[in-house]
């Protein structure tokens, strides 16, 4: 075939490896960014896409492997070094100063341009944006376009976008990609985006690389692959679900513990993180809600525990937990958040003290804390979950990340409650402990507790849950017993491809 071919590869990472402590985030992956093409890194959260991007733009240094830029090997000293080489990155949370106006932000980036020149610049790339508006008031799509403008005006050769569609509404997404395609061709830009949304890949991108747990699973031109193939690459083959240790119970109205109706919750960066969600929870069952990070599950869990006030809809509880309000709710609902250091633990207090946080009301004798009882609880928990620490008096922050997680999980799992809301309980834990955690959840369920498991891991949810629901962009799929799902169906729902793939295969 054609031997003489001018390479259109602008930047390339070959055999890159990135480790964080014991965790290998990127495991010998090679990706190239080509001129005139929109490339995409596809994968679930934690697959390594953002990490890879951050090596291509100098923010992180690879542990091994080489990066080539315009054919030459290059080592970035810092992110700014890459910018000087015309590699521009647009992150999810923008690098603009919210409280300043558009003009002020642009003046900072382009100090030599006059106000008139700035206005021309804006108009070149889109509809009129008033220079004197504060950036905070602009919709996400406009902010993104400003960032793109900034990159282009700085003579970008490579444009990297990290999860650009996660903050966009549907119409904005369309516009973004059309702009990228047009500009890419006009300016011979090499564009690489990361996403977890299959639909984005199939509709708009040219070349896709699928990452799974840090490894490269598939690399093809989008025109040469299909949604199904991509879904399989991301999640594994479509198989029947194995029997697991969890067996779903029959659901009885009188056993209902919590009922959620039409719940909508505001998000931090987007107007609605949870949209019109309805489901019920029952005694003695595990309801698994799975979704890729950023689709609203965290906000849902927060709202259910009472940390966020819903904008619409209601959460009603059965008679025994219900209208007593917050105080009783706290007593009867256990909660493990997905970020223990932020919510759930106190880093500068001792391990023993940390166990007391949600137990102190039960383990007290009038105004005095029953330290003996607390120590007892703590030693049992430490033993059962194999928490590594010198003693209970260690400061929590001195423990390793996994052990910190274990403290939170063991504490909440050990409580005598009606409902347990567990968000990614096995995050950061090794395989052995992960199964310990699962065993515990099943025990708790058998004790009649109503468990809500919020997860990002399909395997976890399949193993543990009785009923499963999938969250995508704030909406919850139909909640069905596990036997009525397939792994592939779950995966498809997670990336929003449910419409095209059709129904699941019933056993």
């Amino acid at each position, binding site marked *: 075939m054609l031997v003489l071919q001018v390479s259109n590869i602008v930047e390339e990472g070959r055999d890159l490896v990135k480790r964080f402590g014991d965790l290998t985030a990127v495991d010998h992956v090679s990706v190239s960014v080509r001129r005139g093409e929109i490339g995409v890194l596809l994968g679930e959260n934690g697959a390594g896409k953002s990490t890879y991007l951050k090596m291509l733009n100098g923010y992180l240094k690879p542990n091994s492997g080489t990066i080539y830029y315009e054919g030459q090997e290059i080592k970035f000293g810092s992110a700014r070094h890459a910018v000087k080489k015309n590699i521009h990155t647009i992150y999810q949370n923008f690098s603009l100063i919210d409280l300043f106006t558009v003009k002020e932000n642009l003046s900072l980036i382009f100090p030599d341009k006059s106000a008139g020149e700035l206005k021309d610049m804006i108009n070149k790339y889109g509809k009129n944006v008033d220079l004197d508006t504060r950036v905070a008031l602009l919709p996400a799509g406009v902010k993104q376009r400003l960032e793109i403008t900034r990159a282009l005006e700085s003579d970008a050769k490579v444009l990297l976008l990290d999860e650009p569609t996660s903050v966009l509404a549907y119409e904005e997404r369309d516009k973004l990609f059309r702009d990228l395609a047009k500009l890419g061709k006009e300016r011979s830009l090499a564009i690489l985006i990361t996403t977890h949304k299959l639909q984005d890949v199939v509709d708009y991108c040219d070349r896709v690389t699928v990452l799974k747990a840090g490894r490269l699973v598939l690399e093809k031109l989008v025109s040469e692959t299909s949604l199904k193939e991509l879904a399989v690459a991301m999640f594994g083959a479509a198989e029947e679900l194995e029997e697991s240790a969890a067996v779903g119970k029959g659901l009885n109205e009188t056993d209902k513990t919590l009922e959620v109706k039409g719940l909508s919750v505001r998000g931090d960066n987007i107007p609605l993180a949870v949209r019109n969600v309805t489901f019920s929870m029952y005694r003695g069952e595990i309801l698994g809600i799975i979704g890729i990070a950023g689709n609203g599950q965290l906000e849902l869990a927060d709202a259910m525990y009472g940390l966020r006030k819903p904008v619409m809809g209601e959460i009603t509880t059965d008679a025994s937990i219900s209208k007593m309000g917050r105080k009783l709710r706290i007593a009867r609902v256990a909660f493990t958040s997905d970020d223990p250091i*932020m919510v759930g633990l*106190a880093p500068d207090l001792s391990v023993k003290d940390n166990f007391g946080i949600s137990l102190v009301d039960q383990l007290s004798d009038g105004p005095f*804390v029953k330290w003996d009882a607390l120590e007892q609880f703590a030693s049992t928990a430490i033993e059962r979950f194999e928490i590594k620490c010198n003693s209970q008096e260690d*400061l929590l922050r001195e423990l390793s990340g996994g052990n910190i997680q274990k403290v939170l999980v063991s504490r909440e799992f050990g409580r005598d409650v009606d409902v347990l809301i567990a968000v990614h309980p096995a995050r950061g834990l090794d395989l052995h402990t992960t199964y310990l955690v699962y065993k515990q959840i099943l025990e708790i369920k058998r004790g009649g507790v109503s468990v809500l498991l919020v997860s990002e891991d399909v395997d976890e949810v399949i193993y543990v849950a009785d009923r499963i629901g999938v969250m995508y962009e704030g909406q919850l799929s139909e909640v069905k017993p596990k036997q009525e799902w397939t792994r592939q169906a779950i995966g498809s729902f997670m990336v929003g491809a449910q419409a095209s793939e059709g129904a699941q295969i019933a056993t």
Partner: protein
Amino acid sequence: MKIIQKREVWRRRTRDALLSTVVVLISVLVGALLVYGIGRSPFEAYATIFTSTFGSPSGFLYTLSQSGPLILVSLGLVLAFKGSFWNGGGEGQMLLGGMTGVMATYLAHLNNAPATLFVGFAAAFFISGAWASISGLLKVFFGVDDIVSTLLLSASAAFVVFYLVRVPFRAPTSQNAAVLGSVNVPNDAIFPSFFGINGVFPFAVACSVFLYFVLTRTKFGFKLRVLGNNRSTAIAYFGKAKANRLFISVSFLSGGFVGMGGMAMVSAFTFNIIAGASGGAYSAGGFTNSYGFIGIAIVFLAGLDPLAVIPASVFFVALVIGGLGLLVQLTIPSSLTITISGVAILFVSARLPIMQRLRTLVRRR
């Protein structure tokens, strides 16, 4: 496990104590440099300080007595910082407490020492506590930064006290506009001494033990510590309303103890309040000896431990009193020792970054 636990706790405590000692030594060194800079002998200066404070049994006992008010003020600040309440208004709260004590005991006419003392201390506790809790309320309901409001309110408190001294409670004999004195407290409000030590010292020690007990053994103390360490966690597991109520209680109690420090000062040493008419904002005519700020140094050097506050306070009070000795005997300004305290605060401000760097250095080995 128990033995390992105890060992762990002591290891950590000694490490912190070591760091604090280093800070103190550096500050003392800076002080020595200053003395040398004005052409005097640092040895002479420090020797004088030492002899006037610890050189004789009576001096030693006097120093201990003098540490009473400082201990009380520091205890108030321990509570505050343990609960994440940035109390920069110690000066004003102390002054207000002292003035309240003067007024309450003066008006009470009880002629009964224990009762009068009780009235004085209780009044000081409540009024200063209420004043500090304004900042607590402002933070919870209006998002006003506690450090800002405590500092500003402290300045306002000074003016309130000036007015009280100038008009309703002025001593009839005091006519000098620059330095006005209030009425003296009645005799039964004077704290008695026992075996050469003024009663405020054992009283302060008792408070310290009490607070230690509260912080380590009660539910309230426990929740306070959680709130101080991680507000989000406290809100999540105690409820937002409870967390807010806890914060306001902390501010009240903090002001209360600081106020009692003011009353202790009046009851044992000054017997009245003297207000300078210059309208000094945060340090009023020398009554407080900057205890409201020195207390902050003490609190951090003592690792926020109510018991460790005692030796730290004795040390700093020795500096302050010794400073007065410097003036009398060597004509070196007494403000030297307060400067030394200030330098200690300076290094305390950097303790976290410095500890982090030391830790990475050690880890590299």
